[in-house]
């Protein structure tokens, strides 16, 4: 489309001189863009923080013992049912974990892998008993999965001997501090004593009920021959399910569970949140486009006399149409620029006055670009109606009807 100079000359003058109307349209588009920007930045930020809370300081893939296998209740030929026998085999350990561990460590997608020995424990302190989840880890690998580098509140990340890194809520409830010793009983009743060498805040309630021990000490304390799981972190959390699927094809004796599979509800909620925000954004855009179409449509009718003489003087049908298309396009561009600025101001103000610090705004380029592109497209499409009107007008009908 070659735009001839007079088209922009006239279009811009129409916009400039129809000041009230232009300002109204610009404000309309700007508010629309700002709302879209704000919504997507807010929801994006919220989703990021929810996902971060879920996977930020947690494993992405769990390598677990296979599901319980059904076993026959019949003992043999003509024999009766053995009522003492449970109807499935209980395998709560990954015995040949070294093989998986070595393999996982070799995968480029995997950033950390750690065998863990998990089990329930009961801390007895000052007459109170607190149930905790014990987790034996390799100090270095585990620190990478649970991000001790940034989550450690006090103490160190080293584990060994009787040292323990306790979750924040355990420390709070039992008033444990660095150097404190505590007594733990396992589910079979055996007890042992550990020393707090670190306190960690993992952000989520469940995670903060963990007590980390060294892998060797946990295995012997919990009576495990193998490990109860291997926990894995990958570079891109959203690739976890794909990586898990690949691992499933490789190994069939163990189970690979991604965080996505464990958090279906969260992901569904996020998806429907995105969906509803999309619907809101669509209708905002739709309403703005209608507004532009009607205002520019009225302008085209108001200016039909001028358009008539312009056409007599040599403006052809395309030129007349483009005078209005350029107006729509310019309104879209101008409104988008103002709208993004406005959106940024609204978002910052929102964070300042209502923000709890729990989550921030997601200020990605896409949050700027998408509403802007949509607004420009919407206002251009909206100006097609007045453009057609201007294009169809003949100079004669104006001259004839005065």
């Amino acid at each position, binding site marked *: 489309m070659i735009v*001839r*100079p*007079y088209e922009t*000359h*006239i279009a811009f*003058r*129409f916009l*400039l*001189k*129809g000041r009230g109307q232009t300002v109204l349209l610009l404000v309309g588009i700007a508010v629309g863009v700002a709302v879209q920007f704000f919504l997507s930045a807010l929801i994006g930020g919220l989703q990021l923080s929810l996902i971060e809370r879920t996977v930020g300081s947690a494993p992405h893939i769990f390598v677990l013992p296979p599901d319980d296998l059904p076993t026959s209740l019949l003992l043999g030929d003509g024999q009766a049912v053995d009522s003492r026998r449970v109807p499935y085999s209980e395998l709560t350990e990954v015995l040949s974990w070294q093989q998986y561990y070595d393999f996982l460590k070799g995968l480029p997608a995997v950033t950390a892998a750690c065998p863990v020995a998990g089990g329930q424990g009961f801390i007895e302190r000052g007459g109170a008993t607190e149930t905790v989840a014990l987790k034996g880890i390799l100090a270095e690998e585990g620190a990478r999965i649970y991000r001790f580098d940034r989550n450690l509140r006090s103490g160190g990340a080293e584990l060994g001997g009787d040292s323990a890194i306790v979750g924040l809520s355990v420390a709070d409830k039992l008033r444990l501090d660095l150097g404190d010793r505590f007594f733990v009983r396992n589910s079979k009743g055996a007890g042992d004593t550990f020393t707090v060498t670190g306190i960690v805040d993992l952000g989520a309630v469940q995670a903060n009920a963990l007590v980390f021990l060294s892998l060797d000490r946990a295995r012997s304390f919990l009576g495990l021959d193998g490990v109860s799981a291997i926990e894995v972190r990958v570079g891109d959390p959203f690739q976890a399910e794909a990586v898990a699927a690949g691992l499933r094809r490789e190994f069939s004796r163990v189970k690979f569970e991604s965080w996505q599979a464990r958090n279906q509800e969260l992901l569904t909620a996020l998806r429907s949140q995105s969906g509803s925000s999309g619907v809101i954004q669509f209708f905002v855009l739709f309403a703005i486009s209608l507004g532009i179409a009607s205002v520019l449509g009225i302008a085209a009718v108001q200016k039909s*006399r*001028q358009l*008539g*003489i*312009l*056409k*007599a*003087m*040599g*403006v*052809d*049908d395309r*030129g007349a149409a483009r005078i209005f298309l350029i107006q729509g396009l310019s309104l879209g561009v101008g409104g988008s620029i103002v709208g993004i600025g406005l959106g940024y101001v609204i978002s910052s103000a929102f964070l300042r006055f209502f923000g709890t610090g729990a989550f921030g705004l997601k200020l990605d380029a896409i949050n700027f670009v998408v509403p802007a592109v949509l607004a420009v497209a919407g206002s251009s499409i909206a100006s097609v109606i007045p453009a057609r009107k201007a294009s169809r007008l*003949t*100079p*004669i009908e*104006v*001259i*004839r009807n*005065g």
Partner: protein
Amino acid sequence: MADIIAVRGLVKRFGDVVPTEVLHGLDVSFERGALTAVIGPSGSGKTTLLNIVSLLESPTSGEIVVDGRDFSAGDINRYAAYRNAHIGFIFQFHYLLPEFTALENILIPHWIGRGRPPGAVVDRALGLMRDMSMLPIKDKYPNQISGGEQQRVAIARALVQEPKIVFADEPTGNLDRETGSAVLAIMTRMIRELGTTLVMVTHDREIALRADRILELVDGRICKSFRVAEKGLAASRELLEDRDCFVDGADDPARKA
């Protein structure tokens, strides 16, 4: 003088359901450099004739040649560039663009045809304004100047591209008599100075008598056609008063052919 516009067998019908024929096979020509007044009662087809020869409206049938180029067929949108370069328009209403100043309005035809006007064209526009005593209002907007001034701006706008032909439809119809007379004087003076052809529709006989030639249409046919200078003003006035038709020998298409 050669004809700049030649029309043969011009027919114009309006309406599809109940067609009304406004022009019934008109043969007419306009001389280069002359001022021709087209008069006639309302409904006689004079404005329709003007619209067709000024390439604003397509004829139902007939042949139109303007300055040696055939414009008989095709839609008027295709003639936009030609109108811009060679034809000037002055209508009863000025139709100035209210968003532009007087000077900017005069420059609009140049914008349309050739883009941003260079200094020489701006100077030409200012020269036209000076000749029509409009320099003081050059930066005023149409709603800030009088009706007579608005129409003078429209005249300057019609002339700025130095067109071959100017078409005027009741150019003073919207002005009071005194202002109208002054505007008309300026218009005819400018057009004569530039040697431009003028075809002007008017219902006012006194205005018509200022032209070189008068053409009267009645019911879509030529009723009168003569040259004012040849007949003299008094005789011309009498001819106009006369109810009978009179076509001067020189304009008789049968004799011309």
